[in-house]
């Protein structure tokens, strides 16, 4: 199985996103990572909702289920529970995951079922040609908001943390190394996994992320949260780290090795508050936007609890005997 390559994960269907769409890069990184995992191809199931992002399963040469708008986390829950051996991935858009599907997503997260939700966030409804999504900025003009959006957007990281997801991370379509790293970590996690991926929709919301992700600014405007590493960023000329003063983040410039008071990133705390704080980091003036692993906490999975009960039931009551079940309760015999 270690012989799988990216190519093995490419289906025979022509990929039909707009030329230049960020989805291509994500697909490519995803295929690369899957080939690396040492998991047989037939164990993967990719479940999606509806949207441009959700066409994803058609292009993966794995088992795939393109379902209906917003319901992928619920369907994936059934897929996983019925066969916990499978590696179940959900691919969703910002509208699919956070608008019509918000409830299913958050319930999957709180249960800590091991499904890995990748949300491609282009801050727009792509497939329906350009309406505001729940991550569109306030005052954004779209087809449905010609005078600017009046809806304050969700913070996807904060939302997932509020639901107690045990793995929460963020990456970027065009930063391939980083994305593959995050996907690897997501694959390794056991439990509810939410990954937001900044994705460019060059047709309806072009350059939504460039002010953070463009090569020219990236080093200064993004900070990568790496478990066990100090929280540092900045171009080689101007290295900075982040420490905390109470709940207030403080920037520290440094040269050479990062000073000791810089926060060493620990996403594994049972209390998600530190992660939550970093989900709001960019609310603080001059602070970069974090990407990387916000939270990564071990906990019993939902499916383990569910199957654990099946085992106990079998141990205490014996394997289900249908005839005995039918005859259970008060019975009488007519001769």
């Amino acid at each position, binding site marked *: 199985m270690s012989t799988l390559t990216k190519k093995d994960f490419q*289906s025979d*269907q022509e990929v039909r996103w707009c030329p230049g769409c960020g989805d291509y890069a994500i697909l490519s990184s995803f295929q690369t990572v899957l080939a690396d995992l040492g998991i*047989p*191809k*037939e*164990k993967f*199931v990719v*479940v999606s909702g*509806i949207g441009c992002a959700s066409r994803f*399963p*058609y292009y*993966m*040469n*794995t*088992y*795939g*289920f*393109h*379902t*209906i708008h917003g*319901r992928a986390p*619920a*369907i*994936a*829950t*059934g*897929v*996983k*529970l*019925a*066969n916990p*051996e*499978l590696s179940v991935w959900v691919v969703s858009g910002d509208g699919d995951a956070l608008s019509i599907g918000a*409830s*299913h997503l958050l*319930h999957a997260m709180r249960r800590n079922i091991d499904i890995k939700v990748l949300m491609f966030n282009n801050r727009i409804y792509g497939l329906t040609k350009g309406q505001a999504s729940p991550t569109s900025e306030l005052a954004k003009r779209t087809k449905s908001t010609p005078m600017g959006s009046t809806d304050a957007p969700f913070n996807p990281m904060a939302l997932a943390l509020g639901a107690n997801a045990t793995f929460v991370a963020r990456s970027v379509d065009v930063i391939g190394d980083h994305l593959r790293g995050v996907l690897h970590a997501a694959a390794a996690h056991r439990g509810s996994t939410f990954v937001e991926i900044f994705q460019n929709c060059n047709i309806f919301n072009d350059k939504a992320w460039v002010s953070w992700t463009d090569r020219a600014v990236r080093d200064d405007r993004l900070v990568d949260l790496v478990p066990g590493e100090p929280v540092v960023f900045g171009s080689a000329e101007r290295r900075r780290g982040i420490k905390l003063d109470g709940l207030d983040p403080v920037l520290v410039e440094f040269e050479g090795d990062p000073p000791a008071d810089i926060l060493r990133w620990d996403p594994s705390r049972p209390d998600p508050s530190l992660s939550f704080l970093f989900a709001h980091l960019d609310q603080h003036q001059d602070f970069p936007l974090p990407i990387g692993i916000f939270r990564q906490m071990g906990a019993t999975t939902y499916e383990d609890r*569910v199957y654990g*009960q*099946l085992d*106990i*039931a*079998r141990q*205490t*009551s*014996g*394997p*289900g005997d*249908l*005839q005995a*079940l*039918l*005859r*259970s*309760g*008060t*019975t*009488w*015999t*007519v*001769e």
Partner: protein
Amino acid sequence: MGTEDTSTPRHEHALSSVTIRFAGDSGDGMQLTGSQFTTSTALAGHDLATLPDFPAEIRAPAGTLPGVSGFQLRFSGDEVFTPGDDPDVLVAMNPAALRANIGDLKPGGLLILNDDSFKQKDLDKAGCESDPREDGSLSAFRVIPVELTRLTRAAVEEVGIDNRSADRCKNFFALGMVYWLFERSMEYTEEWLAKKFADRPLLYDANRRALLAGWAYCEATELFAERYVVPRAKVEPGLYRNISGNAAISLGLVAAAHRSGLRLFYASYPITPASDVLHEVAKLKNHGVISFQAEDEIAAVAAALGASYSGALGATCTSGPGMALKAETMGLATMVELPLVIVDVQRGGPSTGLPTKTEQADLLQALYGRPSETPTPVLAASTPADCFGMTLETARIAVKYMTPVVLLSDGYLANGAEPWKVPEVEDLPSFPAKFVDEVDGFLPYARNAETLARGWAVPGVAGLEHRVGGLEKQETTGNVSYAPANHERMIRLREEKIARIADDIPLQTVDGVESGELLVVGWGSTYGAITAAVRAARAEGRAVGHAHVKYLNPFPKNLGEVLSRFEKILVPEMNLGQLALLLRAKFGVPTESLTKVQGKPFTEAEVSGRIRELTTRGTKA
């Protein structure tokens, strides 16, 4: 025929059938009393049918009309089809219970009253302007006032519990009286009490004393001039138990899993009157059953479909409002052609409506409540026990034809119970699921030539990796296709697949005459009332038949022919005429509707009355 022989004077011993109703406050334990009496009656070898009637509130104020809870039971030495129209015996624990139920008691019927609960404040709470015991309004009945509260307290005095706890035993005192009246053995109830209160010996003692005291009181006081003797039913030999519709569905689902070799994945969101199915299934984890309480009905059906995709038997159960929410996912199931069992335990609507009451008004929703052409088999159970077999049948069709299938039950079947001859497992239908295992030439939408079902290829098998989804599928390959001609072909293929199921279900049978003046066509829980009414009409020599349609889509192949053999067609339904609409549309036959939308089942008399209007009395057939 289960009705009392009207030529026999009412005070005599021998009755062919008795209907008894227990009525009291929700806190009085009437459902428990009723179910104890039911089991003891079943154990005594009678056929029976029950009808619980809960208040809609969790706990309405004690002593008020909305708080009245009732349980009706009919038993007989003959076959019993309904829990009876008007009771022969009414036990009323307080004025509210009396007021709510006295209108139904048969003239000359026996009325047992808790005499201690007719204080002025009780009468006020019940909204009685005068004391019914004194205002002459009960003169048509044989009234037996019993100081239930005082007598029960006395009976349990030695146990040394407080009055409040003592008063909670008075239903067992009343039950003891009724057991005496019908010469029932109290053994079952004594055993039940022993088990129930195993770790609360005082309560066990108190309740048992109350029970025995009730019996002894009748024995000692000659309160009743006589006891009633109802002959044992002549039923098929075998092992029996009582079963409610919801319990039967739960067992049916687990049985379907055993008989198909699949894991049952049951996903549901609680809703009255379907919740008990979840409660029952959740207890059966040793059968490998996964019961998943979803965040809503959409997630429930979605998870069930996901589980079917993974190779389990996905099932969900709900009531009308929940059905509405499942529509979109059912459409997806139609498109991806995976098995899915959807049970709708119908209740009074529209909207929240009368959530604890029964109705049959989701038939058209089950058939047409989805966008576009989404052909879906629809089945309906006729009696509580029939829910078992019909659930199995629902699952069989789902698995064999790779399709969502709807089973309709209703609040009346859900909570009603009847004796059920426990089947032998080997006599149950067997429909082992076959997963695709042939990698060579695998095509996701290749079909079985006979059933038109596509193959079920389950994740985990190397070489069968494929994609399904809600976009139109290319024939055979299952790839996405927007081609006009392919769409038309697929639309017709899906339609044809469901239509062909008609070859795989029983022909429509007719009870009563096979042709003649009137065919009464029913479906679902009207079975009992129609059967009783049609048999009564036959006894009067009327040329009446009864076709009870258990397969609503597709209809049995011969249904059109059956309809054509009768001059008139009467369709009693607890809706405004939904099956009637379908019969006219599909068979071009004129229909008469008998509709009732009151949250209550038809009485036999209502159906009989209409049959009499539409037929002539002839010679006994």
